[in-house]
């Protein structure tokens, strides 16, 4: 290649240089796993001393993987992949396209794998018979008639020689996807209190700069479910996307199941209990004489302790106390009045429904902590390119490791009254497997009774 004349390009074609770059990436990566990343200067000063901390900060060791020099190493590696591949692919292509019919019998005999057969039958029958057997096993044949012999050539999976380059290309595709993601995407976060609607999110890369949402996002509810042993089992948020106050998407998200809408994906990432804020669900049922209950009103509202709240149907409610333990998680002491008798007071446990019957009405109340759900918001238009890169990498590795370029030559040569049939070939991988393939073809030929072949 022409570009080899330039010394820098030459450097990039050398495997030794690639090994040097990969070694540097490996060594610095190790440092990055030992030094905690993304901490404050004070943290490093306490751990490594003031002076070291400042040096580390300047060299970017506190955020090493996004440091310019580390990204430069990755870029050099990409460069190396491109130039190494450009340097070698033409050779591989010319090998794939090589005229294998120019081989002579001496070359056939030089192959490690060869089987010699002999026949007394006439030439025409032998030649067509051999080709028929090959075609049965999906070997597409090319032929060339030389002065004293017919040369048959066939090959399989010649392109598999490019497998390693598919893997190299896949790495470039993954880097491209990552680059597109970091150039045109962003990561942001937002805390949405239950019952409220977010119209902007806050960038994680750019000092919390607000990014307006192209639609509105409402959080209807957040809840944590626990296992019996107290470990958290599930964090979930009921999210609603709204455009012009019209519901366009509704989803209950959990940690492994985000909501995606209009190119943005919302992940459940944290939560925060809201100080002195409670969710109250109240329902009113009428009890008829046949004891049939009929729900009349369902209400959900947010209440603060010691603030009287007016509900529908002249009902009034107040949370008097939020719990004896001081954590504010019940049992809640509740005051309630429906103007149909004396106001009453009762206790309700956290998240547990309490039913009060007054006359022919039955009220149910549930009180719980109000939360704000913490959402991680990601826009990554490059992720599908990265996934394509992943798929290509696996395919490339499969091709590189498990597919082989197999080449098969058969020469049918007249020697006196007999024909000699030379089966010969080679494979760039799995040589034992190829020996078996060749043996299998020989066996098939010997089984063709009309050809009357014998081993030599």
């Amino acid at each position: 290649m022409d570009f080899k004349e330039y010394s820098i390009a030459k450097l990039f074609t050398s495997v030794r240089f690639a090994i040097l770059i990969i070694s540097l990436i490996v060594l610095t990566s190790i440092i990055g796993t030992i030094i905690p990343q993304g901490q404050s200067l004070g943290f490093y000063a306490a751990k490594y001393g003031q002076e070291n901390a400042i040096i580390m900060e300047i060299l970017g060791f506190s955020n090493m993987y996004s440091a310019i020099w580390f990204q430069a190493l990755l870029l050099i590696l990409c460069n190396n992949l491109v130039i190494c591949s450009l340097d070698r692919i033409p050779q591989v292509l010319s090998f794939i396209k090589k005229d294998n019919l120019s081989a002579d019998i001496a070359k056939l005999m030089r192959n490690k794998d060869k089987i010699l057969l002999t026949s007394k039958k006439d030439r025409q029958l032998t030649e067509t018979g051999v080709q028929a057997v090959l075609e049965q096993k999906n070997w597409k044949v090319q032929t060339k008639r030389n002065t004293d012999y017919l040369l048959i050539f066939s090959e399989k999976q010649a392109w598999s020689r490019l497998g390693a380059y598919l893997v190299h290309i896949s790495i470039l595709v993954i880097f491209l996807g990552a680059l597109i993601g970091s150039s045109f995407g962003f990561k942001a976060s937002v805390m949405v209190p239950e019952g409220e609607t977010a119209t902007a999110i806050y960038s994680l890369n750019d000092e919390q700069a607000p990014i307006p949402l192209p639609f509105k996002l409402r959080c209807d509810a957040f809840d944590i479910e626990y296992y019996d042993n107290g470990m958290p089992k599930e964090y979930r948020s009921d999210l609603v996307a709204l455009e012009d106050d019209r519901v366009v998407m509704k989803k209950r998200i959990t940690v492994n199941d985000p909501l995606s809408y209009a190119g943005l994906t919302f992940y459940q990432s944290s939560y925060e209990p809201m100080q002195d804020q409670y969710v109250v669900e109240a329902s009113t049922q009428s009890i008829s004489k046949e004891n049939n209950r009929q729900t009349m009103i369902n209400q959900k509202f947010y209440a603060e302790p010691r603030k009287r709240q007016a509900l529908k149907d002249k009902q009034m409610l107040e949370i008097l106390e939020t719990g004896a333990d001081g954590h504010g998680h019940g049992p809640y002491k509740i005051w309630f009045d429906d103007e149909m008798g004396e106001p009453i007071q009762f206790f309700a446990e956290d998240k547990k429904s309490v039913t009060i019957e007054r006359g022919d009405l039955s009220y149910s109340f549930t009180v719980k902590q109000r939360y704000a759900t913490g959402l991680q918001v990601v826009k990554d238009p490059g992720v599908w390119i990265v996934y394509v890169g992943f798929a290509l990498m696996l395919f490339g590795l499969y091709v590189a490791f498990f597919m082989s370029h197999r080449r098969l030559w058969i020469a049918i040569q007249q020697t006196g009254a007999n024909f000699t049939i030379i089966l010969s070939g080679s494979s760039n991988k799995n040589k034992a497997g190829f020996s078996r393939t060749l043996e299998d073809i020989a066996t098939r030929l010997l089984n063709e009774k009309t050809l009357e072949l014998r081993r030599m």
Partner: protein
Amino acid sequence: MDSAQFLGYTTFLYLAATIIYVGMLIFKIDRLGLLATALTIVGVSANTIGIVLRWVESYRQGIGYIPLSNMYESLVFFAWTIAVTYLVIERVYKTRYLGGYILSFAFLAMAYASISTEFSKDIKPLLPALQSNWLAAHVITCFIGYAAFTIAGGLAILYLIKTYSTGNIRYKASVSETKTPNLEQLDDIIYKMIIFGFLWLTVGIITGAVWANSAWGTYWSWDPKETWSLITWFVYALALHARYTRGWSGTRMAWVALVGFLSVIFTYYGVNFLLSGLHSYGG
């Protein structure tokens, strides 16, 4: 019977098989090999039953997850993968002479899982982040890779001992060694295990990345476990390139396999106990 009992038998069976494989080598009694293979197969069965029972038990406790979620469970699966891979090698290469050597790693993994006090053996419910179908795919693929690299590393040690103890680095076939795998065969198995492990580690890293993206919206965060898996991947990538482009084999390849193995151990074990990060639940 419960899973703990079966996994206890598994440890014992792998130990017994290891001893008998070694006995076969020392006393040169070929028939012992048959017994050792049988014990290994019984051991793998007990190991399988143990894993399945633990799965069933987790459902009975109302938790219900595939037992691949902590250090203990991963060691049990690791041992299973090593033993199964060994049986495949024994069949393909038609030799029992590596049995004692490779199975001792399966035994060590099981023994460490049962006696260590660094991690809990209880069935514990899954944290929200781990509740994903990707968990099984990610852990299984990574551990097939780890097991293959462990076998490659173990055989590399054997290769180096054989080479340096006989004093000649270039192998010369001798009649007395026809039964034991010769250096050339060892080199071939090491190379094949590296290929096999590399493929599975790649799938493991990719499934991890896809999972991370579905849970957090980031397919790569340079967390220590991720970074170390990438380091390991690079080490083996270098090994493969050295072989393809420079024709490395034999002693040099064995050294690379050993370095790779150390990297695997650190990725698997060291990261969990020495560094902190997203995979901290792995302990």
